[in-house]
């Protein structure tokens, strides 16, 4: 029962990433990230309650507050300020990137089969989903031009790593998790400021313009 729930949430996270690949509106991408973080939080709460690991509850609460509320709110404010609402011309168009991501998911699943202790049961599904999410996140980072999408891709990769830590291992020490959470929030703040600066200078969020600076 609890395992089914974890697998369901992990699958939901995978669906949210694929939907993120499948469309271009930045607001929707941020909302999808919010849903993804909520699902991660749900995994944490479910496992924390079922296996009596109270520190997982703290982690889950932190995940939900930071990644499902604070970061989406901050990113929404950023795109509101700069007034750029959608990914106009990604390097790889949507159908092609979907195809690639399908391939990446299959690769992620196949690779997870080879991992010791992760070749069956819940761990297999969780590790498979997480590896696929890491690959898709890395792909999104190079395939999209807008800084916000790249930030979201980075956060997706981070969520995937967290999913493995919570779902397939006995979890990280609380101190480490706290450290990572603050790292993430700091990274997002810095990147948010960076987006402002890029938009100020180039009147666009397109990171490919950054190479104009080369002498």
């Amino acid at each position: 029962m609890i395992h089914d729930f974890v697998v369901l949430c992990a699958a939901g996270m995978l669906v949210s990433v694929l939907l993120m690949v499948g469309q271009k509106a930045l607001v929707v991408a941020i909302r999808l990230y919010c849903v993804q973080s909520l699902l991660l939080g749900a995994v944490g709460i479910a496992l924390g309650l079922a296996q009596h690991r109270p520190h997982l509850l703290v982690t889950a609460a932190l995940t939900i507050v930071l990644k499902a509320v604070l970061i989406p709110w901050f990113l929404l404010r950023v795109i509101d300020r700069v007034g750029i609402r959608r990914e106009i011309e990604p390097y790889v168009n949507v159908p092609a990137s979907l195809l690639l991501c399908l391939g990446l998911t299959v690769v992620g699943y196949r690779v997870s089969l080879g991992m010791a202790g992760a070749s069956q049961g819940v761990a297999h599904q969780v590790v498979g989903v997480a590896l696929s999410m890491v690959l898709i996140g890395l792909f999104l980072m190079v395939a999209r031009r807008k800084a916000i999408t790249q930030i979201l891709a980075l956060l997706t990769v981070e969520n995937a790593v967290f999913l493995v830590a919570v779902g397939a291992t006995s979890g990280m020490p609380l101190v480490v998790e706290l450290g990572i959470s603050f790292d993430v929030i700091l990274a997002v703040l810095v990147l948010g400021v960076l987006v402002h600066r890029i938009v100020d200078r180039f009147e666009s969020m397109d990171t490919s313009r950054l190479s104009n600076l080369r002498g």
Partner: protein
Amino acid sequence: MSTIPLPVALFAAAQAMGFLLLAPLLRGLIKKMKAAFQLRQGPRLLQPYSDLAKLLRKEPVRSTTASWVFVAGPRVYFASALAATTLVPAVLAAAPLEQAGGILLLVGLLALGRFALATAALDTGSPFGGMGASREMTVGALAEPALMLALFTAGLSAGTLNLGELVRRTAERGTSIHPSELLAAAALFIVLLAEAGRVPVDNPATHLELTMIHEAMLLEYSGADLALVEWASAVKELLFMTLLAGLFLPIGVATSLAPEALAISALALAAKVGGLALLVVLVESTNAKLRFFRVPELMAVALGLGFLALAMRFF
């Protein structure tokens, strides 16, 4: 050719009647919920019934250039939708005519209806009809493979292509969730939005001919002909929701004819369809209609999810 035994015929007739009678209610429910989201009162819940009754009383006006194809279109569309309802398990974990065929027949019947309506729309030579037909077929050509992939995923996990058998086996096996099921359900939901002409794909409430997809095919229809098409579309929408609920949420489905099991199953089905309707309303209220040339991107997502769901079954 053997004759159909009486209980099966009764069961089929009852299920088809149920779909026919409840489909307009679903339309009304969706309209009402959508209005609530927009802080309007909206039409009353039973308005679709009144609309249908009014249209059925009116004499259809047909263009002088229309041939029999134009007259046959709505009838074939209606009949195919009605036939499709007898292939899907609803309250009972069995489909009335499941001996006749499974997933492939269902998809084929839906395609037949679409074909009949599209040719009928072309028949009068009205430019909007042709435009609507062309768009409907474009969306249909992309939605159909996604639908088949999603259904095949469910079929593969149960080891059968027969929908009644499929639901029975899923109900027996109990809960053991595989991620592919969620992916297939998501694909099927996107197909549902496309087939029912809901917002990211089509806008059912639009009056602007240039943006219409489904409605553009119906511009030439009036009176009883129009009523048949509207009614069949509502049935199709209910059919897709029942299918989605039956295949991926088989909780509370009655496996016996005991009255209490049937009552629980009917209530569960109503709750599931209500939940799906709410989800459709949420999507409709928070999204704008996609530009037509971006619809293929959405359908590509559905296709991708369906394909992935099927591929994940092998790992």
